[in-house]
């Protein structure tokens, strides 16, 4: 009988999150392949959103098992690395194809989505930290 250790539980949770992402990618790809993007926007968008929402939720056990040092590492990497990578990609696209190309506009739209998600989560975090003011 194998003994479940913290690291093995963390690995299992990470594997579940990774698998969920792969499964969501495959199913989402099939949905896009078989559907009619653009024409069936109001069918495909909620379906894909739900699918990826489930995939994100599958990452919760992993996130909850991380200790605060590991979590700080991921948050730092996500904030600074994610932003740097995103900006490098967007600026590269703008420099290569011009600011009004479809690629650049698509990338800029993604930046808006990232900023909106960031603000929403930050607002939620601020609300959760509230306590009695004296």
């Amino acid at each position, binding site marked *: 009988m194998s003994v479940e*250790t*913290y*690291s093995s539980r*963390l690995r299992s949770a990470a594997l579940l999150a990774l698998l969920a992402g792969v499964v969501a990618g495959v199913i989402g790809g099939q949905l896009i392949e078989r559907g009619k993007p653009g024409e069936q926007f109001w069918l495909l968008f909620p379906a894909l959103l739900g699918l990826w929402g489930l995939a994100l939720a599958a990452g919760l056990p992993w996130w909850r098992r*991380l*200790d*605060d*040092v*590991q979590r*700080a590492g991921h948050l730092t990497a996500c904030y600074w690395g994610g932003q740097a990578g995103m900006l490098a990609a967007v600026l590269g696209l703008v420099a290569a194809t011009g600011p009004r190309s479809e690629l650049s506009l698509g990338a800029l739209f993604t930046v808006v989505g990232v900023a909106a998600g960031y603000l929403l989560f930050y607002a939620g975090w601020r609300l959760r930290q509230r306590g009695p003011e004296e």
Partner: protein
Amino acid sequence: MKNRLRELRKAHGLSQAELAEAVEVSRQTIIAVEADKYDPSLPMAYKLAAFFGVAVEALFFNPFVSAEAE
């Protein structure tokens, strides 16, 4: 934050990996705290102190209190 984690761990004959498993954190976390590269949260500091059966102040040195005051 300066601490006595390495000293206490060795006194208990534990490796970094064994201590990490015992307190349910990653080995990298133990390494980072021992090397004074990361200040743990209060719950983690209490968890580590409780594991060794000492007060938090006996494990982590308060950088805001002068040596004379202690």
